[in-house]
Structures are given as structure tokens and as C-alpha cells.
């Protein structure tokens, strides 16, 4: 009996196997050149062929060496299923095929003694999404006629900033009119969908710039006041000093990356930033801090973040913040005062079993400085995480958002600290539907990240395809700093497609608002939702219909 090496990783252990057709291959080499993971290589194979060249059969055995494209097998250079080889092949000779009997997860860990890391989203989602089980059931008919989506004027703005209770407004009555007798907390009224929050570093600078261009264009040419959150990775000084800064929400997280430059640029700012977002946690990997692996820390990333080339691990918590009250007093107060209380400051946390407690405490905000509560659910994306965090930790966003809204209603404080929700929204490619439903459940607005990358051309999905954002080898130039790979991304085209997507989304939002008869955003209008799933209906306190 022949010997074999049981413990060695082999092709059938891998998540993806290459389906390669020698007959169609012309050995142009494009696939090998295009694969950033070095998961395929040119090689030769010995072939045995029986031929007969006589008019009566005289079989002869012939051995030939033929050139082939071979799949590499290893713990580092393995196929991620991104399909770039298939895209570049002129003859449809090669493509990755999912291996249902993969053992890669166990092989990798058993060989390297290292947690498997990757980007993307949780890959264990097996059920239909909750939002897909919810429909807009209240379509105005006889008593409340629908509006005309294409002709009616809709007011689709959401608050970013602290809203005071009406009886605390500094109003005086003078000559039968209300006048303000002192300032109120700064509130920016913006489009109810924020792009964010993905850092330069996690993203290529070209991808980040494309988003910034798209956001500026949406504001200045399309008339949609969309904001973009910088993520925790700093902001180019050129942008900090430009008039476009007003469209950017600056993020500060536990690593404080990039804040030296932001602070140094403050005297030179011609516009205030659109807001500050304190990131406490991230829905895709709650409990982990940010993770930028050294291979993505190119020289420009080092500079913008003010750090050496090394694995950049943001601590999972903010050093020195041990309670909600402390966070309000320290971070909110210092960031509010840094911009002289002219820039609203909000906080982003991962959805968790305790989100409602945090929100309840923030709602009591005695200093009127908490400008928003961003809750991020487990279906959100990330550039890099331990797979165990991605697949096995987190909290779904829909019921959590609903609980937060209900908590505010219970206190009679709904709307005072705007609620923004995210986590896998637009995963079915329709952000407008998800955004609408989240708002009807109580969100003032939503934020979206990974969808922007998918608009740009990200080939990954939530079933293990690609998910290589952490490697610095993104095959489409979105999540890499590799000078060759980033050039695969067309900045202008990407910006254009993001703009187009927002225009489409804006129209689709109106198509949702019109039939329920709303001129303004449907925040808290859960009466217009139904669910065809009794458990979902009961949990969210909306109508069950069948």
C-alpha cells in the first residue's frame, strides 16, 4: 500500500478548489498575474496518452509534459474564492469552486496555533434576515390617500446632535413671538444615511477618496446632505484644511489614531467637521478593538496615523473610561469643548445585551452634550478580525434598536438623543428598504459601510467568498495599500457609482414614504409595519399578518 502524508494540508482541505480546463487554457498567464494571494501558479504535469498512428491499431504509450495552471496548497497562499482569475481569463478556463467538505478551519488552527483572522461579515448566517420578514403593510388607501412619490416634496433630514426637551428650550415670548434667549446644543440636520465608518488604512486611500468625492458631490451637486464618517485612521491634512471638511464626521476610537494631525490642523480649518463620533465598539466584532495588520501599514498610513509599521491594535476599551457617566464627563465634554460646542458629538457602540442600559443612562445626559447614539449590529462588516469574534459574538441590530427606542419612549425622551443604527443593512442590495424599516422601528437614521465597498466592486460575500480584507491583498484595490493592487480601483468610477446608488436610494425612500403618506421620515411609525413571522412581530411589537 502506498504511503501518504495525512497531516499535511491538501487540496481537498481548502475552502475553495480551482476548476481548471486545460483544453480551454491558452497559457496567457493573466490569472497567475492577477491573483494577489499567489494561490495559483504556472507548472507542468506529466501526462500519459495511448495513441495509434498506424492504419491498423498499434497502441503506443506516450508520455508528455504539459504546461498547466496549478492551485497552491498551503496555510498562507490558499485560494480565497475571490474569482479574479475567472474575471481575467479570456477563455473561461478557470474558476474557484466552493469545497463543501473543507477542513481548512481546523487545519489552519492546528498547524499555526494562531486564531484565524479575516475580514468581511459573519459567515454563519443561515436564516433569512429579520428585516426581510418585515413588510410595509400600511399603504394609505381610502382615508389617507397616498402621496405622489415623484412630485411631492419630502423632508428627509435627520438630526445629528442633542435635542432638548421642549420645556427646556430657551424661549421667551416677546410681542407674541418666540425668541431665543440663549444658545441650544448644536444640531446638524443631515441625510438619514451616513457613510461610515471605515478608516484610511482599512481601506485603500483610493477607496476612501472615492467615498469622500462621492459625498462632496452628493452635497454640492445632487443636494443630498450625506455625511461620511472618517473611521479611526486619521484624515488627510488637505481635506482637514478644505471646505469639504463639513461633510466629514471625525471618529475617535481607543487608538486615537490620526488625532495629532487633526489637532494640529484645527487652527487652519476653514470649516468645522460635520460631527465627532466616539467609537466604543463595533458590531461585527464586539469586544475586540480595531485591528490593522502590519502588512497594510504602508508609509502613507504610518504618516497619517502617526505610528510605525507594526500591527496596529486599538485597545478594546477606552483607557480611563470605566463607566457611562465617566464617558459623558470625560470624552463628550472634552470633544465638545475642543470645538467650542459647535460640533455635535455622538457615540457608537456595538449592539449588546446592555445597550439599552447605556442608552438609558445617556438619555439622562445632564450636560446636554450627547449628540447621538449609534448602535452597530453583528451583521456589520470589518476589515480585519479574529474569525471567532466575527462568527460567534455580537447582537442582532433590529430588536436592539427597537429596545433602545422603546426605552426612550418609556422615559418620554424619544428623539432627544438621536438613534442611528447599522449592521448588515443593504445586504440584500436595497438600503432604502432596510433604512425605512429601521426608521419606522425607531431609528432617526442609519449608517452603512460594507455596502459602499460592494458598490465599488468588492467581490466578497457572507458565505466565505474572499473575506481577505485583512491581508493587504484585496484583489480589487479596496482594502489594500499595495501600490499595484490599488490601481485596480477607478476612483472616479467608484465615486460615480456611489453617487448613483444614493440617488436611486433617495428615490426608493420616497417610493416607500409616499404610500404611507409621510412627507417626513417615518421615525417611530411602527404602525405601518407588519411581519409575516409571529415571533418577529411579537418581539418588535408590530402587527403579525399572514
Amino acid at each position, binding site marked *: 500500500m502506498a504511503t501518504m502524508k495525512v497531516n499535511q494540508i491538501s487540496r481537498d482541505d481548502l475552502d475553495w478548489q480551482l476548476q481548471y480546463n486545460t483544453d480551454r487554457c491558452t497559457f496567457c498567464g493573466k490569472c497567475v498575474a492577477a491573483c494577489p494571494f499567489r494561490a495559483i501558479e504556472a507548472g507542468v504535469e506529466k501526462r500519459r496518452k495511448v495513441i495509434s498512428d498506424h492504419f491498423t491499431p498499434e497502441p503506443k504509450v506516450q508520455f508528455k509534459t504539459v504546461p498547466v495552471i496549478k492551485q497552491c496548497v498551503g496555510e498562507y497562499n490558499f485560494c480565497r474564492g475571490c474569482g479574479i482569475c475567472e474575471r481575467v481569463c479570456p477563455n473561461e478556463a478557470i474558476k474557484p469552486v466552493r469545497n463543501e467538505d473543507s477542513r481548512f478551519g481546523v487545519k489552519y488552527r492546528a498547524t499555526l496555533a494562531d486564531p484565524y483572522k479575516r475580514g468581511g461579515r459573519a459567515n454563519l448566517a443561515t436564516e433569512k434576515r429579520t428585516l426581510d420578514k418585515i413588510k410595509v403593510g400600511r399603504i*394609505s388607501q381610502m*382615508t*389617507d*390617500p397616498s*402621496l405622489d412619490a415623484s412630485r*411631492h*416634496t419630502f*423632508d428627509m*433630514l435627520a*438630526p445629528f446632535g442633542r*435635542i*432638548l*426637551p*421642549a*420645556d427646556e*428650550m430657551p*424661549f421667551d*415670548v416677546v410681542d*407674541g*413671538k*418666540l*425668541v*431665543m434667549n440663549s444658545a*441650544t446644543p448644536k*444640531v446638524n*440636520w443631515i441625510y438619514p444615511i451616513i457613510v461610515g465608518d471605515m478608516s484610511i488604512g482599512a481601506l485603500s486611500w483610493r477607496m476612501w477618496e472615492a467615498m469622500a468625492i462621492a459625498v462632496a458631490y452628493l452635497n454640492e451637486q445632487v443636494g443630498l446632505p450625506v455625511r461620511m464618517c472618517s473611521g479611526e485612521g486619521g484624515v488627510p491634512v488637505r481635506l482637514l484644511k478644505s471646505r469639504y471638511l463639513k461633510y466629514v464626521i471625525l471618529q475617535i476610537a481607543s487608538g486615537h489614531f490620526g488625532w495629532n494631525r487633526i489637532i494640529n490642523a484645527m487652527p487652519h480649518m476653514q470649516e468645522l467637521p460635520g460631527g465627532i463620533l466616539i467609537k466604543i465598539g463595533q458590531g461585527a466584532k464586539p469586544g475586540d478593538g480595531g485591528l490593522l495588520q502590519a502588512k497594510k501599514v504602508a508609509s502613507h498610513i504610518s504618516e497619517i496615523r502617526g505610528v510605525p509599521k507594526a500591527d496596529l491594535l486599538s485597545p478594546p476599551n477606552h483607557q480611563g473610561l470605566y463607566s457611562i457617566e465617566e464617558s459623558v464627563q470625560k470624552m463628550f465634554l472634552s470633544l465638545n469643548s475642543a470645538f467650542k460646542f459647535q460640533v455635535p458629538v455622538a457615540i457608537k457602540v456595538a449592539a449588546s445585551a446592555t445597550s439599552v442600559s447605556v442608552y438609558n443612562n445617556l438619555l439622562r445626559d445632564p450636560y446636554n452634550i450627547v449628540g447621538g447614539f449609534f448602535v452597530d449590529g453583528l451583521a456589520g462588516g470589518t476589515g480585519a478580525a479574529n474569525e471567532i469574534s466575527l462568527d460567534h459574538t455580537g447582537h442582532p441590530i433590529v430588536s436592539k434598536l427597537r429596545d433602545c427606542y422603546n426605552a426612550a*419612549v418609556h*422615559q*418620554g425622551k*424619544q*428623539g432627544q438623543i438621536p438613534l442611528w443604527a447599522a449592521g448588515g443593512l443593504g445586504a440584500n442590495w436595497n438600503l432604502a428598504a432596510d433604512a425605512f424599516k429601521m426608521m419606522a422601528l425607531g431609528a432617526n437614521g442609519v449608517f452603512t459601510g460594507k455596502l459602499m465597498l460592494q458598490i465599488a466592486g468588492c467581490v466578497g460575500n457572507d458565505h466565505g467568498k474572499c473575506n481577505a480584507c485583512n491581508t493587504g491583498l484585496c484583489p480589487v484595490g479596496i482594502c489594500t495599500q499595495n501600490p499595484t493592487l490599488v490601481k485596480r480601483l477607478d476612483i472616479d468610477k467608484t465615486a460615480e457609482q456611489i453617487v448613483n446608488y444614493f440617488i436611486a436610494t433617495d428615490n426608493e425612500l420616497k417610493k416607500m414614504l409616499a404610500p*404611507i*403618506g*409621510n*412627507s*417626513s421620515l417615518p*421615525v*417611530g*411609525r*411602527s*404602525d405601518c409595519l407588519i411581519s409575516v413571522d409571529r415571533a418577529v412581530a411579537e418581539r418588535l411589537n408590530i402587527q403579525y399578518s399572514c
Partner: protein
Amino acid sequence: MCRIGAIKSKNYIHPSKALHLMRSQQKGHDNSGFAMVMQDLGGRFANYKELPILSMACTDEGVKIAEDILHEAGFSRVMQWSPEINEQAGLKIEPMPNYVFQVLHYPKSYKYAPAHEKEELLVDIRLQIREALEETNDGYVYSFWPDVLTLKEIGDPTDIGTYFNLWQPDEDFTAKIITAQCRQNTNYDIVRYAAHPFFLEGYTALANGENTFYEKNKNFQKNLYKGYIGFESDSQCFLYTLHYIHKILKWPLQYYKHTITPLPYDEAEKREDHAILQNIRAVLGNLELNGPNTIIAVLPDGTMFNTCDAKKLRPVVIGHTADTVVISSEVTGLNEILPERDWTQDIYTNEREMVVINNNLEVERWQQ
């Protein structure tokens, strides 16, 4: 669809006017009830302007429950009147055993109490009676306020008029302001509390249409003030918003319109008072109304006004003579009771205005 109407006059008028106003519009409603609020009372109530009047419909046990509560709180009865009942076979009405209109003295301890303390007391006692009546299902208390009478009943309005003998003009039962509606709220259960007009602390409101922001409004209002309860009808929200803006926040009346139908952001931005408007929209976004509605309301000082939602509207027309102003869902109502008016002066309220009628019966059109 509801039909609503309101009459404000320099002279005392009898509820038969309101019945005529509403019956002429009966093709537009379902004849499922009649309700009215009378304010600035004449006749037998004219001499008790300062004293609270309890309006309730209840069982014998209900009368006792209410009297016990009032007695314990220190109220003493000054006068009681019940409408003369005219029972006939075949009337479509679901009457209660007793209709009580009782004028009471404040407790002695309130002799020198400031107005707001007396007002709070009246609200507290009414809520207490309501809760007690609900517990045993012994009746309904509609209002407990000086110079105000409320009557609500389920049935055919014509028959309700006959039952209470309201078709016959009578100088002893009159008021200068009467608001009325001829339909129970059939979007929800038929309950007497769901019938417009709604009344709270001197404020009256009645509306037609559907409040599609009911859930938002209700969720916000239920924590604002103890008197914001019930919500049997989605239109109660309009009363509570008015009460909140005008009574609790003490904002001038024009800001009611800015609250319920804020100007679009683009338009508001161009105005001098844009900071105020923007702030009102921010803090009271939950009180916006989405329509389609028209609202008639009366303030404690007798001012009456009408306003509509900002986009879909429900029909309403205002007609007037030298001594009477009438607001009606349909012009046929005006033709019935104000045939002598100059109909070219009729006002059809638009989506950005409030039509306000003061106590001199001057009709003002306030543009938002």
C-alpha cells in the same frame, strides 16, 4: 368620514342650531352618534360662570361613586340639572340611565387658592372619577370645568336630539360656543370617550380625517401630562398637542401650526425666525400631524380657530354674519343655519393658515 361643526355667537344659542347644522350633512357621516361641548353658558347655568360643572353619563351606582369622590375632596353641590328625557319607541339610541350636569363649589380649603391649583384639582378629580367609573363599568365623565357642558351619546343624531328634547329651542339651555360632531369614531371601537369634541382644561378640539401619526403622537404625549390619557380616538392627540403648546409651554397660538405642520426645511430656512422654527421642529417632531385632517378648536378664553394638515386636507368652510360665525365640514351646514350670510365671504381654510375667530367675532386669517 366625520362631519364636524362649530358655532360661535355673540348671542346665546340653543343646541338645536348645532343639530340642524350637523343633520344637513348627514349623507357625509354614518349617523352613529352625536356629541357636543357647550362653552360660555347661558340660561340656567349663566349665574355660575366661576363654578365647575361636572358632565357625566352613568348608572345609579356611577352617580354615587362620583358623589362620594367629590364629597371626600370637599366639593359641595350648588345645582344639578338633567335633560328632560323624551322616550319614544323606535329611537335609535343606546342611552345611559343618568345624565348628570352638576354645578359644584370648590372645597373650602381652595378659597384663596391660585387658579392653576384649582385647575389641577379639577383635572385630578375628573381623572379619579373616570378611573373609578371604569373599574366597575358604571359610566363616563366627560368634563369637569367651569362654564362647560359636554354631552355624548351613541345612536342616530336625529333620535338623540329627540330623546333629549334638543330639537325644541329653549332659552334655559344655551351657550355662546357650541362644537359638535355626528359620528362615533368607527376606526376603532365605538365608545363614548372616542366621540369628538374632546375637552381638557378649557381647551376643546374636534377633527375629521385620520391621524396617521397617531402612534408617534400618542407615544410622545402619554408622558407629557397626567391628563393625556384615553387615546380612544386618534384625534385626541390634536387636543393634547394644543394643550401642551398653549397651556403647558405657554407658547403663542401661532406655534401650534408650526408644530403640527412645520414648514418644509427649504422654506423655513429663508425666514427670519428660522432658528425658532428649526428648533420647534427638532424638539416636537413627534407631535407633527400627517393628515388628512381639519381641526376646529376652542381656547379657554373663547377664541375659536380652524386649521388643516399641510398636504391632503379635509374640507371645511367658515361662514359668518355680524353676530355669528359657523365652521362646518360642508357648506350645506352653513346654508341651513346661516342662510342670510354673504356666501362670497365664506373662507375655505388652506393648508398654511389658521383662521382665528376672537370674542368680537373678528375673523382673522393667520398665514404660517
